[in-house]
Protein backbone atom coordinates (compact mmCIF):
# COMPACT_ATOMS: atom_id res chain seq x y z
CA UNK A 1 0.00 0.00 0.00
CA UNK A 2 2.65 2.39 1.08
CA UNK A 3 4.68 1.65 -2.02
CA UNK A 4 1.71 2.41 -4.26
CA UNK A 5 1.19 5.74 -2.59
CA UNK A 6 4.81 6.72 -2.94
CA UNK A 7 4.77 5.81 -6.63
CA UNK A 8 1.56 7.76 -7.06
CA UNK A 9 3.04 10.80 -5.36
CA UNK A 10 6.18 10.58 -7.44
CA UNK A 11 4.13 10.38 -10.61
CA UNK A 12 2.22 13.50 -9.57
CA UNK A 13 5.49 15.30 -8.91
CA UNK A 14 6.85 14.46 -12.35
CA UNK A 15 3.60 15.34 -14.10
CA UNK A 16 3.44 18.73 -12.43
CA UNK A 17 7.06 19.56 -13.11
CA UNK A 18 6.85 18.82 -16.80
CA UNK A 19 4.11 21.36 -17.52
CA UNK A 20 5.84 24.50 -18.82
CA UNK A 21 5.20 28.01 -17.65
CA UNK A 22 3.19 30.23 -19.97
CA UNK A 23 4.66 33.60 -20.95
CA UNK A 24 2.37 36.58 -21.57
CA UNK A 25 2.41 40.30 -22.38
CA UNK A 26 4.40 42.68 -20.20
CA UNK A 27 3.68 43.45 -17.39
CA UNK A 28 0.90 41.10 -16.46
CA UNK A 29 2.16 40.28 -12.98
CA UNK A 30 4.37 41.71 -10.27
CA UNK A 31 8.04 42.40 -10.99
CA UNK A 32 10.57 41.24 -8.43
CA UNK A 33 13.95 42.69 -7.59
CA UNK A 34 16.56 40.28 -6.21
CA UNK A 35 18.78 41.85 -3.58
CA UNK A 36 21.90 39.67 -3.14
CA UNK A 37 22.28 40.85 0.47
CA UNK A 38 20.33 40.46 3.67
CA UNK A 39 17.52 42.86 4.46
CA UNK A 40 18.43 46.15 6.11
CA UNK A 41 21.56 47.15 4.21
CA UNK A 42 21.82 50.34 2.18
CA UNK A 43 21.06 48.60 -1.13
CA UNK A 44 18.07 46.82 0.32
CA UNK A 45 16.61 50.01 1.77
CA UNK A 46 17.08 52.04 -1.38
CA UNK A 47 15.38 49.50 -3.60
CA UNK A 48 12.58 48.89 -1.12
CA UNK A 49 11.84 52.59 -1.22
CA UNK A 50 12.11 52.68 -5.03
CA UNK A 51 9.90 49.60 -5.38
CA UNK A 52 7.25 51.34 -3.32
CA UNK A 53 7.03 54.32 -5.68
CA UNK A 54 7.62 52.54 -9.01
CA UNK A 55 4.66 50.19 -8.78
CA UNK A 56 2.15 52.90 -9.65
CA UNK A 57 4.02 53.82 -12.85
CA UNK A 58 4.57 50.24 -13.95
CA UNK A 59 0.97 49.27 -13.33
CA UNK A 60 2.00 46.18 -11.35
CA UNK A 61 3.59 45.87 -7.94
CA UNK A 62 7.36 45.69 -7.54
CA UNK A 63 8.51 43.38 -4.75
CA UNK A 64 11.91 43.00 -3.17
CA UNK A 65 13.32 39.50 -2.51
CA UNK A 66 16.52 39.08 -0.49
CA UNK A 67 18.80 36.28 -1.66
CA UNK A 68 21.88 36.74 0.51
CA UNK A 69 24.86 34.42 0.62
CA UNK A 70 28.19 33.84 -1.01
CA UNK A 71 29.22 37.47 -0.74
CA UNK A 72 26.43 38.27 -3.26
CA UNK A 73 27.26 35.36 -5.62
CA UNK A 74 24.08 33.47 -4.77
CA UNK A 75 21.79 36.37 -5.60
CA UNK A 76 23.56 37.25 -8.85
CA UNK A 77 23.62 33.65 -10.01
CA UNK A 78 19.88 33.39 -9.44
CA UNK A 79 19.33 36.71 -11.15
CA UNK A 80 21.34 35.56 -14.13
CA UNK A 81 19.48 32.26 -14.38
CA UNK A 82 16.05 33.88 -14.13
CA UNK A 83 13.75 33.92 -17.17
CA UNK A 84 14.77 36.88 -19.38
CA UNK A 85 11.19 38.16 -19.43
CA UNK A 86 11.66 41.27 -17.32
CA UNK A 87 9.83 39.93 -14.28
CA UNK A 88 13.02 39.27 -12.36
CA UNK A 89 15.52 42.09 -11.97
CA UNK A 90 18.64 42.15 -9.85
CA UNK A 91 20.12 45.08 -8.00
CA UNK A 92 23.59 45.65 -9.40
CA UNK A 93 26.19 47.10 -7.05
CA UNK A 94 30.00 47.23 -7.28
CA UNK A 95 30.56 43.61 -6.15
CA UNK A 96 28.93 42.50 -9.42
CA UNK A 97 32.11 43.69 -11.12
CA UNK A 98 34.46 42.72 -8.24
CA UNK A 99 33.58 39.19 -7.13
CA UNK A 100 34.05 37.53 -10.54
CA UNK A 101 37.73 38.52 -10.34
CA UNK A 102 38.14 36.93 -6.91
CA UNK A 103 36.36 33.60 -7.11
CA UNK A 104 34.93 31.51 -9.90
CA UNK A 105 31.42 32.81 -10.41
CA UNK A 106 28.94 31.64 -12.99
CA UNK A 107 28.39 35.21 -14.15
CA UNK A 108 30.03 38.53 -14.97
CA UNK A 109 28.32 41.85 -15.63
CA UNK A 110 28.14 40.78 -19.28
CA UNK A 111 25.45 38.23 -18.41
CA UNK A 112 23.06 41.04 -17.55
CA UNK A 113 21.31 43.82 -19.48
CA UNK A 114 21.70 47.20 -17.78
CA UNK A 115 18.36 48.86 -16.99
CA UNK A 116 19.04 51.94 -14.89
CA UNK A 117 21.53 53.31 -12.38
CA UNK A 118 19.86 54.87 -9.36
CA UNK A 119 22.50 55.89 -6.85
CA UNK A 120 26.19 56.82 -6.86
CA UNK A 121 27.95 57.61 -3.62
CA UNK A 122 31.52 58.92 -3.49
CA UNK A 123 33.93 57.08 -1.21
CA UNK A 124 35.97 58.86 1.43
CA UNK A 125 38.57 58.44 4.16
CA UNK A 126 37.59 59.43 7.68
CA UNK A 127 39.86 60.26 10.60
CA UNK A 128 39.10 60.93 14.23
CA UNK A 129 38.75 64.67 14.87
CA UNK A 130 41.60 64.55 17.38
CA UNK A 131 43.95 62.86 14.95
CA UNK A 132 47.35 64.53 14.44
CA UNK A 133 46.89 65.01 10.70
CA UNK A 134 45.12 68.24 9.92
CA UNK A 135 45.14 68.10 6.13
CA UNK A 136 45.35 65.61 3.31
CA UNK A 137 48.89 66.77 2.63
CA UNK A 138 50.04 66.07 6.20
CA UNK A 139 48.31 62.71 6.09
CA UNK A 140 49.97 61.67 2.86
CA UNK A 141 53.37 63.07 3.86
CA UNK A 142 53.32 60.95 7.00
CA UNK A 143 52.20 57.93 5.01
CA UNK A 144 55.04 58.42 2.55
CA UNK A 145 57.66 58.65 5.30
CA UNK A 146 56.19 55.72 7.25
CA UNK A 147 55.00 53.09 4.81
CA UNK A 148 52.67 50.42 6.21
CA UNK A 149 52.22 52.32 9.48
CA UNK A 150 48.87 54.07 9.03
CA UNK A 151 46.09 51.55 9.66
CA UNK A 152 43.12 52.00 7.33
CA UNK A 153 39.97 50.03 8.09
CA UNK A 154 37.62 48.75 5.44
CA UNK A 155 34.33 46.86 5.39
CA UNK A 156 35.73 43.57 4.11
CA UNK A 157 38.69 42.17 2.20
CA UNK A 158 38.27 42.72 -1.51
CA UNK A 159 35.13 44.76 -0.91
CA UNK A 160 34.39 48.05 -2.63
CA UNK A 161 35.93 50.43 -0.10
CA UNK A 162 39.01 48.21 0.32
CA UNK A 163 39.66 48.48 -3.41
CA UNK A 164 39.11 52.24 -3.25
CA UNK A 165 41.83 52.42 -0.60
CA UNK A 166 44.15 50.31 -2.74
CA UNK A 167 43.51 52.44 -5.79
CA UNK A 168 44.19 55.56 -3.76
CA UNK A 169 47.51 54.06 -2.64
CA UNK A 170 48.43 53.49 -6.24
CA UNK A 171 47.42 57.02 -7.22
CA UNK A 172 49.48 58.67 -4.49
CA UNK A 173 52.38 56.27 -4.14
CA UNK A 174 51.94 55.50 -0.44
CA UNK A 175 51.44 52.25 1.48
CA UNK A 176 48.76 51.77 4.12
CA UNK A 177 48.20 48.89 6.55
CA UNK A 178 44.72 47.66 5.54
CA UNK A 179 42.60 46.14 8.28
CA UNK A 180 39.44 44.34 7.13
CA UNK A 181 36.26 44.39 9.24
CA UNK A 182 33.01 42.58 8.71
CA UNK A 183 30.96 45.49 7.45
CA UNK A 184 30.90 49.25 7.53
CA UNK A 185 29.46 49.44 11.05
CA UNK A 186 32.33 47.58 12.76
CA UNK A 187 34.96 49.56 10.88
CA UNK A 188 33.41 52.86 11.96
CA UNK A 189 33.18 51.56 15.55
CA UNK A 190 36.88 50.72 15.43
CA UNK A 191 37.90 54.22 14.39
CA UNK A 192 35.63 55.82 16.98
CA UNK A 193 37.38 53.70 19.60
CA UNK A 194 40.75 54.72 18.22
CA UNK A 195 41.81 51.21 17.30
CA UNK A 196 42.71 52.21 13.75
CA UNK A 197 44.01 55.50 12.28
CA UNK A 198 41.67 55.96 9.35
CA UNK A 199 38.75 54.25 7.71
CA UNK A 200 37.62 53.93 4.12
CA UNK A 201 33.83 54.27 3.86
CA UNK A 202 31.00 55.24 1.60
CA UNK A 203 27.98 57.27 2.80
CA UNK A 204 25.81 56.96 4.76
CA UNK A 205 28.42 55.17 6.91
CA UNK A 206 30.06 57.56 9.34
CA UNK A 207 28.21 60.67 8.14
CA UNK A 208 26.43 61.11 11.47
CA UNK A 209 29.74 61.11 13.32
CA UNK A 210 31.14 63.71 10.95
CA UNK A 211 28.09 65.86 11.66
CA UNK A 212 28.62 65.39 15.38
CA UNK A 213 32.25 66.39 15.07
CA UNK A 214 33.70 63.07 16.22
CA UNK A 215 35.12 62.18 12.82
CA UNK A 216 36.39 64.29 9.94
CA UNK A 217 36.63 63.73 6.22
CA UNK A 218 40.30 63.80 5.24
CA UNK A 219 39.89 62.69 1.64
CA UNK A 220 36.76 62.91 -0.47
CA UNK A 221 36.92 61.01 -3.76
CA UNK A 222 34.04 62.85 -5.44
CA UNK A 223 33.64 65.06 -8.49
CA UNK A 224 32.13 67.84 -6.40
CA UNK A 225 31.82 68.72 -2.72
CA UNK A 226 29.08 67.42 -0.44
CA UNK A 227 26.12 69.77 -0.08
CA UNK A 228 26.10 68.94 3.61
CA UNK A 229 29.79 69.75 4.19
CA UNK A 230 30.66 72.57 1.79
CA UNK A 231 33.99 73.19 3.56
CA UNK A 232 35.43 69.79 2.75
CA UNK A 233 37.42 69.89 -0.50
CA UNK A 234 37.60 66.93 -2.84
CA UNK A 235 40.98 65.33 -3.47
CA UNK A 236 40.62 66.39 -7.09
CA UNK A 237 40.69 70.05 -5.99
CA UNK A 238 43.92 69.26 -4.14
CA UNK A 239 45.68 68.06 -7.23
CA UNK A 240 45.06 64.31 -7.11
CA UNK A 241 42.95 63.19 -10.03
CA UNK A 242 41.06 60.44 -8.23
CA UNK A 243 37.30 59.83 -8.19
CA UNK A 244 35.77 56.60 -6.97
CA UNK A 245 32.58 55.45 -5.34
CA UNK A 246 29.77 52.99 -5.00
CA UNK A 247 26.96 52.73 -7.53
CA UNK A 248 23.66 50.92 -7.25
CA UNK A 249 21.34 50.19 -10.15
CA UNK A 250 19.15 47.53 -11.69
CA UNK A 251 19.95 44.88 -14.28
CA UNK A 252 17.92 42.23 -16.10
CA UNK A 253 19.05 38.81 -17.32
CA UNK A 254 20.77 38.77 -20.72
CA UNK A 255 18.32 38.34 -23.53
CA UNK A 256 15.49 40.39 -22.05
CA UNK A 257 13.64 42.01 -25.00
CA UNK A 258 14.64 45.70 -25.55
CA UNK A 259 11.03 46.93 -25.41
CA UNK A 260 10.60 45.29 -21.99
CA UNK A 261 13.85 46.92 -20.80
CA UNK A 262 12.55 50.26 -22.03
CA UNK A 263 9.25 49.85 -20.22
CA UNK A 264 11.06 48.94 -17.03
CA UNK A 265 13.56 51.77 -17.41
CA UNK A 266 10.81 54.35 -17.96
CA UNK A 267 8.82 53.16 -14.97
CA UNK A 268 11.83 53.13 -12.64
CA UNK A 269 12.91 56.55 -13.91
CA UNK A 270 9.47 57.89 -12.99
CA UNK A 271 9.72 56.11 -9.66
CA UNK A 272 13.07 57.81 -9.08
CA UNK A 273 11.63 61.24 -9.86
CA UNK A 274 8.69 60.69 -7.53
CA UNK A 275 8.87 63.24 -4.70
CA UNK A 276 8.22 60.53 -2.10
CA UNK A 277 11.27 58.58 -3.24
CA UNK A 278 13.35 61.74 -3.49
CA UNK A 279 12.55 62.54 0.11
CA UNK A 280 13.35 59.00 1.24
CA UNK A 281 16.67 59.11 -0.58
CA UNK A 282 17.53 62.47 0.95
CA UNK A 283 16.71 61.15 4.42
CA UNK A 284 19.00 58.21 3.83
CA UNK A 285 21.81 60.57 2.69
CA UNK A 286 22.28 58.80 -0.62
CA UNK A 287 23.21 60.61 -3.80
CA UNK A 288 20.72 59.98 -6.61
CA UNK A 289 22.50 59.62 -9.91
CA UNK A 290 20.48 58.64 -12.94
CA UNK A 291 22.11 56.77 -15.82
CA UNK A 292 20.24 55.23 -18.75
CA UNK A 293 20.88 51.68 -19.95
CA UNK A 294 23.69 52.58 -22.31
CA UNK A 295 25.66 54.83 -19.96
CA UNK A 296 25.14 52.38 -17.11
CA UNK A 297 26.49 49.54 -19.23
CA UNK A 298 29.60 51.58 -20.00
CA UNK A 299 30.11 52.37 -16.31
CA UNK A 300 29.95 48.67 -15.38
CA UNK A 301 32.39 47.76 -18.15
CA UNK A 302 34.99 50.30 -17.05
CA UNK A 303 34.57 49.38 -13.38
CA UNK A 304 34.97 45.70 -14.22
CA UNK A 305 38.28 46.41 -15.90
CA UNK A 306 39.52 48.67 -13.09
CA UNK A 307 38.74 46.18 -10.32
CA UNK A 308 40.36 43.38 -12.31
CA UNK A 309 43.56 45.40 -12.46
CA UNK A 310 43.47 46.33 -8.75
CA UNK A 311 42.84 42.78 -7.59
CA UNK A 312 45.71 41.47 -9.69
CA UNK A 313 47.94 43.91 -7.82
CA UNK A 314 46.86 42.63 -4.38
CA UNK A 315 47.60 39.06 -5.37
CA UNK A 316 51.21 40.03 -6.16
Amino acid sequence: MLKKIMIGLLATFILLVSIPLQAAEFPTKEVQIIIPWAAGGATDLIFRALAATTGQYLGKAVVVVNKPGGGSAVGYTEGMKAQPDGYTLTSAVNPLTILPHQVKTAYTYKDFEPVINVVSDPSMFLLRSDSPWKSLKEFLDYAKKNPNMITVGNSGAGGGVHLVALAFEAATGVKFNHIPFSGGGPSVTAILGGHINAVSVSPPEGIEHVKAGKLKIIALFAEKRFEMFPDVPTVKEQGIDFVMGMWRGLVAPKGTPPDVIKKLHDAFKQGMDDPVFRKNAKDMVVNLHYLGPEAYGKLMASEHELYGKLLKEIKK
Partner: protein
Amino acid sequence: MKRDEIIVGMVIFLFGAATALLSLRMPIGTFRMAGTGLFPLCLGILLMILSAAFVLKLFLQHKKIFTPKETIVKAPGTIKQIVLFVGTLGLATLFFNKLGYPLIAFLLIVALLRILGMKRWTWNILLSLVTAITSYFLFVQWLKIPLPKGWIGL
Protein backbone atom coordinates in the same frame (compact mmCIF):
# COMPACT_ATOMS: atom_id res chain seq x y z
CA MET B 1 28.54 -0.37 22.58
CA LYS B 2 32.17 0.39 23.32
CA ARG B 3 33.11 -0.70 19.82
CA ASP B 4 30.58 1.71 18.32
CA GLU B 5 31.90 4.56 20.42
CA ILE B 6 35.40 3.84 19.14
CA ILE B 7 34.17 3.90 15.55
CA VAL B 8 32.51 7.28 16.13
CA GLY B 9 35.78 8.56 17.59
CA MET B 10 37.63 7.38 14.52
CA VAL B 11 35.18 9.06 12.18
CA ILE B 12 35.78 12.33 14.02
CA PHE B 13 39.53 11.72 13.71
CA LEU B 14 39.15 11.30 9.95
CA PHE B 15 37.12 14.52 9.76
CA GLY B 16 39.96 16.33 11.51
CA ALA B 17 42.52 14.76 9.20
CA ALA B 18 40.54 15.73 6.11
CA THR B 19 40.26 19.31 7.38
CA ALA B 20 43.99 19.50 8.02
CA LEU B 21 44.87 18.04 4.62
CA LEU B 22 42.51 20.34 2.73
CA SER B 23 43.80 23.41 4.54
CA LEU B 24 47.36 22.52 3.56
CA ARG B 25 46.35 23.41 0.01
CA MET B 26 45.70 27.00 1.10
CA PRO B 27 48.34 29.57 1.92
CA ILE B 28 49.38 28.94 5.53
CA GLY B 29 51.55 31.94 6.36
CA THR B 30 52.93 32.32 9.87
CA PHE B 31 51.26 33.08 13.17
CA ARG B 32 52.34 36.69 12.78
CA MET B 33 50.87 37.00 9.29
CA ALA B 34 48.32 34.22 9.23
CA GLY B 35 47.26 32.88 5.85
CA THR B 36 43.86 31.55 4.88
CA GLY B 37 44.71 27.97 5.79
CA LEU B 38 46.39 28.47 9.16
CA PHE B 39 43.32 28.55 11.38
CA PRO B 40 41.63 25.49 9.83
CA LEU B 41 44.94 23.61 9.86
CA CYS B 42 45.31 24.17 13.60
CA LEU B 43 41.71 23.12 14.13
CA GLY B 44 42.15 19.95 12.11
CA ILE B 45 45.24 18.97 14.08
CA LEU B 46 43.55 19.80 17.38
CA LEU B 47 40.56 17.65 16.49
CA MET B 48 42.86 14.77 15.55
CA ILE B 49 44.61 15.01 18.91
CA LEU B 50 41.35 15.16 20.87
CA SER B 51 39.70 12.29 19.05
CA ALA B 52 42.86 10.19 19.32
CA ALA B 53 42.85 10.83 23.07
CA PHE B 54 39.18 9.87 23.17
CA VAL B 55 39.72 6.58 21.36
CA LEU B 56 42.79 5.81 23.45
CA LYS B 57 40.83 6.43 26.63
CA LEU B 58 38.15 4.00 25.48
CA PHE B 59 40.75 1.34 24.79
CA LEU B 60 42.29 1.75 28.21
CA GLN B 61 38.94 1.75 29.96
CA HIS B 62 38.02 -1.67 31.25
CA LYS B 63 34.75 -0.77 32.88
CA LYS B 64 31.52 -0.81 30.90
CA ILE B 65 30.86 2.69 29.69
CA PHE B 66 27.69 4.68 29.80
CA THR B 67 25.20 3.65 27.14
CA PRO B 68 22.80 6.30 25.86
CA LYS B 69 19.26 5.17 26.35
CA GLU B 70 18.10 6.02 22.81
CA THR B 71 20.19 3.25 21.34
CA ILE B 72 18.31 0.58 23.23
CA VAL B 73 15.17 0.86 21.14
CA LYS B 74 15.62 -1.38 18.13
CA ALA B 75 12.36 -2.69 16.77
CA PRO B 76 11.84 -4.23 13.34
CA GLY B 77 10.21 -1.81 10.93
CA THR B 78 11.66 1.33 12.45
CA ILE B 79 14.58 1.34 10.04
CA LYS B 80 12.20 1.28 7.10
CA GLN B 81 10.11 4.01 8.73
CA ILE B 82 13.04 6.34 9.20
CA VAL B 83 14.39 5.74 5.68
CA LEU B 84 10.98 6.55 4.17
CA PHE B 85 10.65 9.59 6.40
CA VAL B 86 14.04 11.02 5.45
CA GLY B 87 13.50 10.14 1.79
CA THR B 88 10.24 12.07 1.75
CA LEU B 89 11.95 15.09 3.28
CA GLY B 90 14.58 14.93 0.55
CA LEU B 91 11.96 14.70 -2.20
CA ALA B 92 10.01 17.61 -0.79
CA THR B 93 13.14 19.76 -0.69
CA LEU B 94 14.11 18.72 -4.21
CA PHE B 95 10.78 19.83 -5.64
CA PHE B 96 10.28 22.79 -3.30
CA ASN B 97 10.82 25.45 -5.97
CA LYS B 98 9.18 23.59 -8.83
CA LEU B 99 5.92 22.62 -7.16
CA GLY B 100 5.51 25.66 -5.01
CA TYR B 101 4.90 26.01 -1.31
CA PRO B 102 1.20 25.21 -0.82
CA LEU B 103 1.34 22.02 -2.88
CA ILE B 104 4.57 20.83 -1.25
CA ALA B 105 3.13 21.52 2.19
CA PHE B 106 0.08 19.42 1.38
CA LEU B 107 1.94 16.50 -0.21
CA LEU B 108 4.58 16.48 2.52
CA ILE B 109 2.05 16.25 5.32
CA VAL B 110 0.06 13.56 3.49
CA ALA B 111 3.17 11.44 3.01
CA LEU B 112 4.58 11.93 6.50
CA LEU B 113 1.27 11.19 8.20
CA ARG B 114 0.99 8.01 6.19
CA ILE B 115 4.52 6.92 7.05
CA LEU B 116 3.93 7.54 10.74
CA GLY B 117 0.91 5.28 10.66
CA MET B 118 -2.11 7.47 9.93
CA LYS B 119 -4.34 4.75 8.53
CA ARG B 120 -7.51 6.64 7.65
CA TRP B 121 -7.18 8.45 4.30
CA THR B 122 -10.09 10.81 4.89
CA TRP B 123 -8.52 12.07 8.09
CA ASN B 124 -5.10 12.24 6.52
CA ILE B 125 -6.21 14.32 3.52
CA LEU B 126 -8.41 16.56 5.62
CA LEU B 127 -5.65 17.27 8.12
CA SER B 128 -3.11 17.92 5.37
CA LEU B 129 -5.46 20.25 3.52
CA VAL B 130 -6.18 22.26 6.66
CA THR B 131 -2.47 22.50 7.47
CA ALA B 132 -1.47 23.51 3.95
CA ILE B 133 -4.18 26.15 3.66
CA THR B 134 -3.54 27.58 7.12
CA SER B 135 0.20 27.83 6.60
CA TYR B 136 -0.32 29.29 3.13
CA PHE B 137 -2.49 32.07 4.47
CA LEU B 138 -0.23 32.68 7.44
CA PHE B 139 3.08 32.81 5.59
CA VAL B 140 2.26 33.87 2.05
CA GLN B 141 -0.85 35.98 2.36
CA TRP B 142 -0.38 37.58 5.71
CA LEU B 143 3.36 37.72 6.39
CA LYS B 144 4.11 38.21 2.68
CA ILE B 145 7.06 35.86 2.67
CA PRO B 146 8.22 35.17 -0.89
CA LEU B 147 7.80 31.40 -0.73
CA PRO B 148 8.02 29.70 -4.14
CA LYS B 149 4.79 29.85 -6.08
CA GLY B 150 5.79 26.99 -8.33
CA TRP B 151 3.61 25.32 -10.85
CA ILE B 152 0.21 26.12 -9.34
CA GLY B 153 1.14 29.79 -9.13
CA LEU B 154 -0.24 30.52 -5.67
